[in-house]
């Protein structure tokens, strides 16, 4: 069963966001990792770089595909998950946990309206799967 944790917010481009204070942790959804198949590499943004919401900041690769990852929020990259370099498979095994991608210190306190609730996002995925 595909998992859609209700405490997270989601982008239409399949990133999830977990907000703690003014910091947003970002990864890709369980649905996205299933669609991609075995993840073999993640190209992460440099710490300290400024990112803008809905702009490409990272790339996730499977054997047969490369997908852009978009920043769900604007701000500065304050951490990125270097463990993915040696263990990209954690994106498949634990997409909402140790398979996270990067953390953004948000320049704006409120989350963009474009981000979806788990319920809306799940409906979107069901539609896409048909």
């Amino acid at each position, binding site marked *: 069963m595909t998992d859609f944790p209700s405490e997270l917010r989601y982008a239409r481009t399949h990133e999830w966001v977990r907000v703690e204070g003014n910091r947003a942790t970002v990864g890709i959804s369980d649905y996205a990792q299933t669609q991609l198949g075995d993840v*073999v*590499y993640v*190209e992460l943004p440099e710490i300290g770089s400024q990112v803008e919401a809905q702009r490409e900041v990272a790339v996730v*690769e*499977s*054997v*047969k*595909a*490369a997908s852009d990852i978009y920043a769900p929020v604007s701000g500065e990259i304050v951490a990125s998950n270097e463990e993915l370099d040696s263990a990209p498979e954690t994106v498949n095994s634990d997409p909402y946990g140790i398979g996270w991608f990067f953390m953004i210190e948000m320049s704006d306190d409120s989350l963009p309206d474009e981000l979806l609730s788990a319920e809306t996002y799940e409906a979107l995925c069901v539609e896409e799967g048909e």
Partner: protein
Amino acid sequence: MPFIPHTHADTQSMLTTLGIESINDLFDEIPTEIQCDGLPDLRDGISEMAMQRHMSEKAHIDETGICFLGAGCYDHYIPAAVWDLTSRGEFLTAYTPYQAEASQGTLQLVYEFQTMLASLTAMDVANASVYDGASALAEAILMAVRINRKSKSRRVMVPSTLHPTYLATVESIVSHQGISVELLPTEDGLTPMLKAKLDNAVAVVLQQPNFFGLLEDADTLTEHAHAAGALVIGVVNPMTLALLKPPGEWGDNGADIVCGDGQPLGIPMASGGPSFGFLCTRMAHVRQLPGRIAGRTQDKDGNDGFVLTLQAREQHIRRAKATSNICTNQGLLVTAATIYMTLLGRQGLKEVATACVRNTHELVDRLTTLPNIEKRFAGHYFHECVLDFPESTVELQQRMLKQGLLAGHPLTGMFEEGDRAMLVCATEARTAQDIERYVQALADG
């Protein structure tokens, strides 16, 4: 109908299956205004025998005699087995090994090729080849700019001693991505160490031996470039690396990217192509390496096998963000080169390189004993050397051709004082008699 196997009965039966009267009906989706009525301006086809006769006549016209011409393309002996094996239909008529299980021959061969090139250059990894040496350098420069993002600069420093058509090719290809190519000065045919020139450069190119056949001080140049924060791109002749210090060992840390043309490794001169370009780098930069790469993996039963790997860098997946638009490698030439390197082995390639050095030195020593023929530069040279002659070398070349000798490459327009310089080369394929003929032809004037 050459190569079309259909009998009249076949065609009729296929048309019946399709429920149509004539093949013409299959083209009715092409708007009539843009249809053309055959190719009436072309001659009708001819038999294989007639074609062979015509091609033999054309080939015969161009036989030129003994070759002392190098300048990026060299007359080496190629053992018979190289092209006998390369011309096997399973190598010649296969395509890109995307279906790995049906392409283990090509894939394993590419893996072995990568191993040999990496070892020759003392780098970690090689790709499955690109078009030729000049386009390989253009790709190497684009790659260096992608790797060295820290630098922010898009200035690439290139020695004036680089092969001129390599420079021209680089300029046609890299300028469109906002990269500026700037020339380093030259002094007595070599690239002097001018630290100031390297400031704020993203990469520095170094050809070894350089276009004039001379050995640059690769160690010092590499050190200076690295100190200035620039990457070092080595352009090398792979045959020479049987003797010369490999680019991976230049200076303290070695070159970052190495490229060159593989023609000396069992590829006929053939008017300059097809040959292949090779591209090697450090493991840390492998994701910026364009072109195909073969990798070893296993099947479900744990047997070793080979696949194309890191494909997500390439155009068919990454599209506009690919490392390059290149699809093909020069597969057949890589096949020939891998077989050539295997047949020569470490000892054979060293012998070839040694004979190239000795023959060219012999030629130069003999020629410079003749009146008014002098070496243009003082530095150490490998298997090519620039000589100044007492006459126009374009005319000299024509005169020598009448005696069955291709005397060298006139460096017309390259130096201020006219057209009397010529680049000469004597590979292992030149005998003492060949060299004697050259000397005699000149002495007889």
